[in-house]
């Protein structure tokens, strides 16, 4: 969906998203210790952390490239690959596990043909497992795009992802 | 038959290069002494088809790399008092386990299709299928002693076999603990 940034290490011409990112970098006075904040900001602007984008950040914060790469891959919140159009985030916290999240996980993965942590080949759905989203009272819980679904059943979950897969692919602008 | 039967000894060649067996032959004149002290009841250097019962000591060379090896290993365990991992492949997987970074399919394709000199030739059904991974012997059956080295030296083998023939599990001195 999001086109890769037009430029590499140079300041982009016309890609306004870099202006947004520069604003975050400036807010932290280009300090290296703000790396995680800047990566957060970059991911929310660009959708994921492409290599060139991380190089851009490393240069801006004057950090070694491998440091930036190391931090980006340490934290599971950061994606180095584009996400699917829809996200099925299944909570695998203890309460959800005890209440049968594993069965949902297996069924949904089977329906999508990919494992959790992956995106379907057509880019329709990303399957993500989360470490307790803190809605244990509603276990098992999944977040479908931004919608929290509590007390989810196996069939219900499979049906929801089935709808996403069946959706006609949007024409990218 | 003699009143006190000689210990029944076997050697087995699983997934290895037979280098450990070669090293065994390096015992040279000591082999003659061994011949007096033991009965070699099963070994790749003699033509014996089935692994017999009631073996006292077996030296197993090589990793467990095929279904047949697996079957053999289990048979060996049930029929042998002392099982010895003979050399690095049996002890760690070693060179045999270098294939473990590839899938069985990848391996077969590479070996029998891409690199086959006379064109693609998939192995016939007679050859035992490969296990998913080549594994050291002790991951498959309980093992009583370990002989290290690629291959173990003749002296090391002598030390171990000499002890085993006396009915002792060899406690190899640290000098014989050598991988590679």
């Amino acid at each position, binding site marked *: 969906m999001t086109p890769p940034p037009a430029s590499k290490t140079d300041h982009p011409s016309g890609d306004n998203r870099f202006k947004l990112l520069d604003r975050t970098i400036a807010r932290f006075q280009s*300090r*290296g*210790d*703000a*790396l*995680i*904040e800047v*990566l*957060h900001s970059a991911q929310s602007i660009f959708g994921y952390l492409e290599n060139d984008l991380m190089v851009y950040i490393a240069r801006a914060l004057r950090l070694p490239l491998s*440091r930036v790469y*190391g*931090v980006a891959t*340490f*934290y*599971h*919140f*950061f994606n180095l690959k584009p996400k699917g159009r829809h996200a099925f985030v299944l909570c*695998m*916290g*203890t*309460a*959800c*596990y*005890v*209440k049968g999240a594993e069965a949902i996980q297996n069924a949904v993965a089977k329906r999508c043909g990919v494992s959790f942590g992956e995106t379907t080949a057509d880019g329709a759905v990303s399957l993500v497992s*989360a*470490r*307790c*989203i*803190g*809605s*244990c*009272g*509603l*276990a098992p*819980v999944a977040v479908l795009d931004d919608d*929290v*679904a*509590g*007390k989810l059943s196996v069939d219900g979950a499979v049906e929801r992802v089935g709808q996403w897969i069946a959706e006609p692919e949007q024409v990218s602008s | 038959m003699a009143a006190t039967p000689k210990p029944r000894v076997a050697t087995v060649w699983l997934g290895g290069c037979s280098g450990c067996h070669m090293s065994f032959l390096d015992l040279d004149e000591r082999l003659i002494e061994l011949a007096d002290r033991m009965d070699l009841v099963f070994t790749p250097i003699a033509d014996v088809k089935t692994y017999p*019962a*009631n073996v006292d000591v077996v030296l197993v060379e090589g990793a467990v790399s095929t279904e047949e090896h697996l079957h053999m290993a*289990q048979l060996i*365990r*049930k*029929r*042998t*008092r002392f099982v010895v991992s003979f050399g690095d492949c049996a002890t760690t997987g070693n060179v045999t386990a270098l294939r473990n970074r590839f899938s069985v399919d990848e391996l077969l394709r590479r070996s029998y299709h891409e690199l086959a000199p006379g064109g693609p030739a998939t192995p016939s059904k007679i050859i035992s299928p490969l296990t998913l991974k080549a594994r050291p012997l002790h991951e498959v*059956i*309980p093992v009583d002693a370990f002989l290290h080295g690629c291959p173990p030296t003749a002296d090391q083998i002598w030390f171990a076999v000499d002890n085993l023939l006396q009915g002792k599990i060899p406690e190899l001195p640290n000098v014989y603990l050598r991988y590679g």
Partner: protein
Amino acid sequence: MTIEELEERAASEQQRQAEFKKRVLTCTAAGCVSCGAGKVVGHFRAQVKERNLAKEVEVVETGCMGLCGSGPLVRVAPDETMYKNVDLEAAHQIFDEHVVGGKPVAAYAVDPKMPFFTRQVKVVLENCGRIDAEKIEASMAAGGYEALARALTEMKPEEVIEEVRKAGLRGRGGAGYPTGLKWSIVRKAQGDQKYVVCNADEGDPGAFMDRSVLEGDPHRVLEGMAIAGYATGASQGYIYIRAEYPLAIERLKTAIKQAERAGLLGNRIMDSALSFRIDLRIGAGAFVCGEETALMRSIQGRRGRPRPRPPYPSEKGLWGMPTLINNVETYANIAPIIRNGSAWFAAMGTPKSPGTKVFALAGKICNTGLIEVPMGVPLREIIEEIGGGTPEGTTFKAAQTGGPSGGCIPAEHLDLPVDYESLQLVGSIMGSGGMIVMDSTSNMVDVAKFFMDFSVDESCGKCVPCRSGTKQIALLLEKIRSGQATPDDLALLEELCVMVKETSLCGLGQSAPNPVLSTLRFFRKEYVDLLIPKLVYEPHEA
């Protein structure tokens, strides 16, 4: 802002609230929102507008009301009737009959006399679900910032620390280190700059206490931190919070802005010499960052890899400076201690573990939700009375506390008092407060494997025992589960667990084997039943 102004604003808010005939409070914490609380609030607002009741009825969104398994929850004030499972139809009926008609709707009403409510003692959660978390005035009206004002005007920093020490408060993050002692070490430590850090990286799967406090009463945490800043001599605070808690982050951001505008954070707070700022640092999905040295590295933009202690953060912390790190619930206890005095606090709970503890009760239990009980209350009371026991047709098997660092407590220990020492005695830990109930359908080897997989995933990879040992433990558990393991494997499993526990660098590795060790201790049979005999020599009779 002066103390008089604070009192004035609190009084005017109380006055404003009192003028409404009815106030309809809806829980919009994450749990209730996920079962439709947003629509319920929307309905109430629309009704108020439609019927032109803006002067008589106030619609308020609050934090967690506790009974999370039965949301959305609604409370109607001033008569304090609480409703559960409020869907749109129920909302309509409640508005019609109770808010307008004055007659409570029995069909959805929660019995206020149920043990779930009567057995709780609310200190940390006193405002949670009762106030509008996005309004600083609501917090002030409930006594917010009164303690900060008192500390700044009437107490020396040493006196604040002494009060915390006398209260006997212990760290609520799990380890139970005496808070007052920690504060005094930071106070005495030399450093040009000192930091106060709030650990809100609530990573235990099955725990949502901190999130609920932050969503329901964020100002209480800010106030606690500001008092800590005053007591220790720090001028900068950080709240390290998980990215998975967007609502808590939003409410904290709002709260910080409001407090700054009110002069309760920033320079010369309440015209005193205290300058104290708070910034948020958003975690990025790494459980190990709950470990304090990893957390600090993460705040500094690095991989969250722990380092050996000593030196402790209180001497050498953020940027090498003395740093106080406490957890959300610990800070949330500070204001009440200052306001009501250490004696009041110490009178609750047990002599060694005074005060209360918040637990997130979940799993196979009737009343799932957020509870607060005095320390030392028997586990049985939590499970059977407050929690209402396991659902019909099943029996209690174990309660898991402390998440991946804790253990399972079996039925035979149900009378155990819940405090730091007692839980440790049975191989579990207090942890941050997650409590998952398992019934007879839960297999304990599976449970152990679940937690071990978690630890494998979350190990930072720095030290060998944790990186590689947890992986081996997980492999062994899988081998056992799949019926391929022999008694030798079980022995190796136990040996590795003890080794990883003793040799790992940080708390994650040191406690990762606990779920295995504790299930082995109480449910060994479930492991043994899965074993196969190992192959042995079978002499053949000639």
